[in-house]
């Protein structure tokens, strides 16, 4: 039974495997020759979202399309583009969705502002509390 199921699973996997019938893009699995450029490309790839497997970065993903994206990122950076130029090239096509480092705008604004507001409120509350405690201590002594 297990073998039969394994066979079925294997047969089902054939169409999926077929997208790998082609060789990967030149820089999908190969680093750039220049270590400085490779470092730039690598840190950008970790912040770009894979389109097929939506919870992974393209640096983590084994999807063929993520490989194609990695190659595009490396080739563009090798050609002299800055990481931010490559990022905005993708945002232009897929929206902010594609980057794990979203820009500040009306929608993402609260996410950035909320921690600061909370910190201010917490400081204010703590101050009140400490003052009261000091006063209490004075009363006791």
């Amino acid at each position: 039974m297990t073998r039969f199921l394994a066979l079925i699973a294997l047969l089902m996997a054939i169409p999926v495997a077929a997208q790998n019938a082609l060789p990967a893009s030149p820089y999908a699995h190969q680093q750039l020759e220049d270590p400085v450029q490779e470092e730039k490309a690598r840190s950008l790839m970790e912040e770009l979202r894979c389109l097929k497997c939506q919870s992974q970065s393209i640096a983590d993903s084994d999807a063929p399309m993520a490989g194609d994206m990695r190659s595009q990122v490396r080739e563009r950076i090798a050609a002299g583009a800055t990481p931010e130029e490559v990022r905005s090239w993708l945002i232009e096509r897929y929206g902010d969705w594609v980057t794990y480092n979203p820009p500040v705008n009306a929608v993402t604004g609260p996410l950035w502002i909320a921690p600061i507001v909370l910190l201010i409120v917490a400081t204010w509350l703590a101050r009140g509390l400490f003052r009261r405690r000091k006063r209490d201590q004075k009363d006791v002594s």
Partner: protein
Amino acid sequence: MNRWLLWVPLVLFGIFFAVVAAGLIRPKDNIIESKMIGKPIPEFALPAAIEQRPALSRADLATGKPQLLNIFASWCVPCIAEAPQLLELERAGVQINGIASRDTPADIANFLNRWGNPYVRIGTDVRSIVQLELGSSGVPETFVIDGNGVIVHQHVGDIRKDDVPKLLKILEEAR
């Protein structure tokens, strides 16, 4: 301290609970819409995927007449499901251009022999370059392009029976 302040934590928890519950109940939406809708098709030129059909470039998509651009692959199961609908659109007189994603000529020819060939032109995109240019995130996807080569609509996923009249209407409006 005011009495009503006591209720603030509960209210905050209620809001938090509602947000989480809404996120759990709402069906998962994985569709990433292209931001290229309303913009002209980017410059590209793809070689022919099979011998029987010519290659595809940007110039072929701005001919004064609305057209469809369908991204497909022989390894894609939903592409088989939408094949009859593409043939139906072809019979309705729609010009359909194909982009074969990450595919080999032999596999493409095999796929088209089996499920029908509705395409006037087929370009082969072995490295997903044009797909990335279009803001497409998978196969199958279909773009409606107006006569000036501007993308007016994107259909993500396979074209079902009831999508055909919708697409015909959008093509008509793009005229």
